[in-house]
């Protein structure tokens, strides 16, 4: 089995992952810390799957901050193709080069031909950029499930061997293996081949304790009692069958809102006036109001 170029791992232990991610403002639980540690040690991409708003993208950002790496992001969408994900030839510049050669120096076809398929005319897209970088890199492939199945095939070569083949230039292999995070909302089952190459992390909403810590670390001025009440309320909301459950960032927004309004307790009045911060569908708001007896 071919292994990607070896290099010293970023983290020394699971506890080290925990500590450095916490310093970067992301509080991991045991599962996240262990999986990130393994992804780093085994040099495998990490596939993070879970509902929207559980901190998948945030994890990649925190990881970049914790390892002093640059974050390169590839946002997937329906219709994403090679030219947007991998590389593209700069047609306009190539054309300019051809025309310049016709007008001026009169270089022969062979030299122009070799010239216009050089590095200078290559537009590097996120995947190629990440592979060619010599500095530490975190590559985030966001919302992989939104992209078409063909893109997964494209990712396979990049993720298993960390190399890209460009017909005119040959194969470009990573000099320094980037740390790869793929995220998915599980709206579509990703292919087996892709999953097999990745470590899998199913991310769900955090436990009450962890979410309370997150709120207190991000909104430090909030009274601990109120944070506790807030987190319990958000959990009650998530237990309902809503169209869109409140995300972690919405919990944080809510905490910030309560702080700005100077509210020191979350009672019915405060709740019904600020419900829009966490619930963004009219039908969700009605349901929450009915089930929590706000009126």
């Amino acid at each position, binding site marked *: 089995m071919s292994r990607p170029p070896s290099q010293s791992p970023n983290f020394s232990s699971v506890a080290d992952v925990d500590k450095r991610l916490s310093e970067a403002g992301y509080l991991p639980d045991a*599962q996240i810390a262990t999986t990130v*540690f*393994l992804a780093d040690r*085994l040099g495998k991409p990490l596939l993070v799957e879970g509902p929207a708003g559980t901190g998948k993208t945030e994890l990649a950002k925190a990881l970049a901050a914790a390892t002093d790496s640059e974050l390169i992001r590839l946002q997937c969408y329906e219709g994403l193709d090679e030219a947007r994900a991998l590389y593209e030839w700069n047609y306009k510049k190539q054309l*300019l080069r051809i025309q310049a050669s016709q007008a001026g120096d009169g270089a022969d076809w062979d030299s122009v031909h070799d010239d216009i398929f050089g590095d200078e005319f290559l537009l590097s897209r996120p995947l190629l950029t990440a592979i060619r970088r010599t500095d530490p890199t975190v590559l985030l492939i966001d919302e992989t499930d939104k992209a078409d199945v063909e893109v997964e095939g494209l990712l396979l070569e990049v993720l298993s061997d960390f190399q890209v083949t460009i017909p005119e230039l040959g194969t470009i292999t990573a000099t320094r293996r980037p740390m790869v995070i793929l995220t998915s909302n599980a709206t579509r089952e990703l292919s087996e081949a892709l999953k097999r190459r990745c470590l899998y992390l199913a991310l769900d909403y955090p436990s009450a304790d962890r979410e309370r810590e997150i709120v207190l670390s991000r909104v430090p001025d909030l009274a601990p009692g109120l944070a506790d009440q807030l987190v319990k309320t958000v959990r009650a909301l998530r*237990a309902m069958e809503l169209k869109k459950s409140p995300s972690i960032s919405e919990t944080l927004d809510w905490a910030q809102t309560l702080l700005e309004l100077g509210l020191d307790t979350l009672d019915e009045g405060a*709740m019904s006036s600020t419900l829009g911060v966490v619930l963004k569908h009219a*039908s969700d708001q009605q349901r929450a109001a009915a089930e929590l007896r*706000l009126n």
Partner: protein
Amino acid sequence: MSAPVSRSQELGGLAGHLDGFVRAVREAGIPVGISQAVDAAEILTVIDLLEREQLRHGLAAVLLQRGAQRPAYDVLFDLWWPLSDRPAPADDSSESEEGADGGEPQQGGPRPDDAALAKAMRDELFRLLLEGDEDEIGRFARRAVDRLGSGQPSPTGQSYFSYRVMRALSPDTLVAQLLAGLLAEGDRGGLNEQVARQTVRERVEAFKNAVETEVRRRTANEKGRERVAKNAVRPLADQIDFLRAQSTDLAELRRTVAPLARRLAVRLSARRKIGRQGRLDFRKTVRASLGTGGVPVVTHHRPRKVHKPELVVLCDVSGSVAGFSHFTLMLTQALREHFTGVRAFAFVDSTDEVTRFFRPGADVADAVTRIGREAQVVAFDGHSDYGTAFEVFADKYASAIGPKTSLLVLGDGRTNYRPAAVPLLASMVRRSRSAHWLNPEPERQWGSGDSAADRYGEVIDMVECRNASQLADFITTL
């Protein structure tokens, strides 16, 4: 890679143990490839084996591929790497292994007054649930199983039952007291009570799970873990039979079906291939070529007309397919949320349009009760009658089906020996653009008894759809 080899030689038993675990995971319906098994072995070399939780999460990272597999995996992990395999810190006497302990007063001899013991433990449980420390609750659960959960010792060994623990402690009856304990005086009713209820529910659930886990661990000690593993693992959510779904499964099922419905809607509506473009837009191409010195490097195309079909869903909502009809209505609701050209019809022995109950954002359970109350789906005796239902449909709503319409029939095709009206269905199929029938019964039962599924199957594309994974397969073939 020399390190893993030397390590596995050194820990010969460990590799075998891991192998057994991987086998059990496979048997539980989670596909684990060879390369994943190799990765699992590699995990053992980099992770601290004394940290049980790290091992749990580490193996999960390579063995699992979907979030829904996690509960089954956790059960198996607890069986293969039980807690007592290493000395627990702050262990009290009741936690030691059976057989190894001699000083366990409750085990062999006459028990102290059972009622008094149960009462004392119930009080302790109440205190623990009020405080909500999960580790404490877990330790208490182990103690509770030890003292209250054992059945009569038999020649084959001691057996343990979670229902004994639950009967003695009845945690559900503590809810009212717990609420009183968690809430201050003026907080009854309203927001705070609802929030507290949720908290209490979570904690009681955690306690029950801890008891189940402990009972499984002890049973595995007595009878071997392979036997326990076979019975302990619940089917994965996408394998649950629609017809046999329990009410507890429904929420889980809804979560699996919702994204599938979205995909189905997309498949049925936009059947255009991504990347295939329409006719050349000459003007735009020439305009763009000015940027490249008059050479048309990039061609521009007119966007293709997006095909906007109508979808007609015709679903059986009779009692015989109660579990399935809940799912079909769920599917209808999800389809309604994703495109507007959906018309839904429900039938038992008569047909009525039920589109109005599925306004986007409406609740499925709500819609089901309203259909039962307001829609004219029962004309005669409330047993399904496909013949009459199709006749009423053809009579009243013939215009619903046209050359752009996709028809989706959901039902088991059991006609109660009444006329099946197959030609009528055939003509509906002919008039529609595409037609499919999803049947919740296994294919071998089609045509048995009063089922007309085999006859319908001759005129319409009938697909067996017993669980969410089959639904997913159907959608990918569309």
